[in-house]
């Protein structure tokens, strides 16, 4: 039965790398669906605006051009020049790049620290007992509460923002990698024991490969978290160059130019999604097996 199952699995895998017409069609359908859903959401937005304004409903909040601008005015705002001169989109892309650098450094730092921590913990039950409760507890401390202190420690600068981003990044990586490192089955461990493999060999030949799907599902969470960390890290550090600074800034002018803040959020959203997609693509390259059976 088992043999037959394997045979079926091999037969099921198409060896050709070229895209099949069916795959192309499926991809087109998926893309079409996404576009369709986006258009539908746009429609709902405008319908909501229209109905709430016409009926003058005030629950949950009164709708007008300030509270809920037209989608097209948000996009229009991107093409308007800012008070400093450049177009808003140019300004925001610069800010996004600034924040992206902080987030990227934080992400890298958090991922490395998180992974190293997991490797250390998997080799010592004592360390797990001693440290795991605090690793979990560290996440129940609202990071923004600590952010001002980090800024005091590391001076106001992108480094402190990166550290805050790393703080949000490392946790999912540690927890998931730890689970992944422990996920290889006993038989595989016994096989390597029969080869008299060292701990180091077991780590690199078995534990780390086994942890990859787990690692990547954590990195997907962390990618977003690092962007969030960078944005909220900018708030107490009075850093003006990034998206967090832009949000604080446009927040003050919200009653005059609400679309500017919405446009900033649009770019922030795009940055978060870009980070997420980058990890998804990296996963596709690295993990060739069925990705994350369980989260």
């Amino acid at each position, binding site marked *: 039965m088992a043999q037959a199952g394997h045979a079926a699995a091999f037969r099921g895998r198409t060896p050709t790398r070229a895209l099949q017409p069916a795959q192309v069609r499926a991809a087109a359908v998926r893309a079409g*669906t996404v576009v369709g859903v986006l258009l539908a959401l746009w429609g709902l937005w405008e319908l909501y605006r229209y109905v709430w304004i016409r009926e003058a409903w005030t629950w949950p*909040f009164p709708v007008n051009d300030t509270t809920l601008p037209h989608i097209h005015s948000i996009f229009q705002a991107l093409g308007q020049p800012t008070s400093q001169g450049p177009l808003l989109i140019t300004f925001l892309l610069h800010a996004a790049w600034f924040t992206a650098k902080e987030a990227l450094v934080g992400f890298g730092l958090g991922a490395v620290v998180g992974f190293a921590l997991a490797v250390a913990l998997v080799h010592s039950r004592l*360390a797990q007992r*001693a440290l795991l*409760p605090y690793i979990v507890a560290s996440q129940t401390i609202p990071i923004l509460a600590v952010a001002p202190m980090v800024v*005091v420690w590391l001076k106001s600068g992108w480094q402190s923002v990166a550290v805050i981003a790393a703080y949000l990044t490392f946790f999912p990586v540690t927890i998931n990698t730890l689970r992944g490192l422990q996920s290889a089955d006993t038989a595989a461990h016994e096989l390597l024991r029969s080869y008299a493999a060292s701990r180091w060999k077991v780590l690199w030949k078995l534990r780390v490969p086994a942890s990859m799907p787990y690692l990547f599902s954590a990195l997907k969470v962390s990618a977003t978290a690092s962007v969030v960390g960078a944005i909220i890290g900018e708030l107490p550090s009075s850093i003006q160059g990034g998206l967090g600074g832009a949000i604080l800034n446009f*927040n003050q002018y919200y009653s005059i130019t609400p679309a500017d803040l919405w446009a900033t959020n649009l770019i922030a*959203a795009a*940055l*978060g999604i870009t980070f997420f997609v980058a990890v998804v693509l990296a996963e596709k390259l690295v993990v060739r097996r069925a990705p994350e059976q369980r989260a």
Partner: protein
Amino acid sequence: MTVVAEPTPSGTVLATVRTRLVDWIPAIVVFCAGIAVWQLSIEIFNIQKFLLPKPGAIISAFWTQRGALWRAGWLTLKEALGGFALGSAAGILVATVLARFRRLGEALMPIAIAANAVPIIAFSPIFNAWFDPLSSKPRMATAGVLCFFPVMVNTLRGLTSVRPAQVELMRSYAGGELQIFRRVRIPTALPFVFSALKVATVLAMIGAIVADYFGSFGSLGITIKNSVALFDFETAWAAILMASILGVLMYVAVSLVERIVLQWDPTRQERGTA
């Protein structure tokens, strides 16, 4: 007939308590050592108070200002709890609808995943424009939206990751969709829901405090922000301590409910907290 699996040995309560305590000893040692190193290193290396106050000083600030901290903390907790309840309930509700109408769910899934990657925090100033910034509503909204997506995505994943054989079994009993939902999908989803809810407690606290930065009144985030501005770092740390205690309380409360509801779940231990 040989009994292969004996009923699981429950042992005496005392023995269980003892093993529990032994399990926690390393953590307690680390805690005491950490506090000692913290306190001593400040004295030995003469670290400036603004960089890191002594743990003793933080505790005494916490104690002397407990009234004010508790008032601010209570406000923040209410905001976080309100957002948690609203966001999680909405997340579970939407996931249930999407699980019922699979085509709709599949169409919306990519958008939901993308929305999950959006830094929702950025939207909290907009909630200030929607609702009265002096009320709790904008912070509650931020916390709620922050909770919504992980709960929704995880619940939907739980509701749809039922084992096909279990559905077939129900069908062999002539069970309809509603029966399958009640007896298979919901129990299967519960572990997923609870791990999302635990994440959501943390997010709710983060949301409530971060939203303070865009204008608020009397809550913990403001206490921290103002104390740092006045170089009163002991109060700032005491407020952080309060925020942490409240965050841990929310997390522990959900974990306890989980422990009671998911007594049956053999994977509860290994799934841990992630």
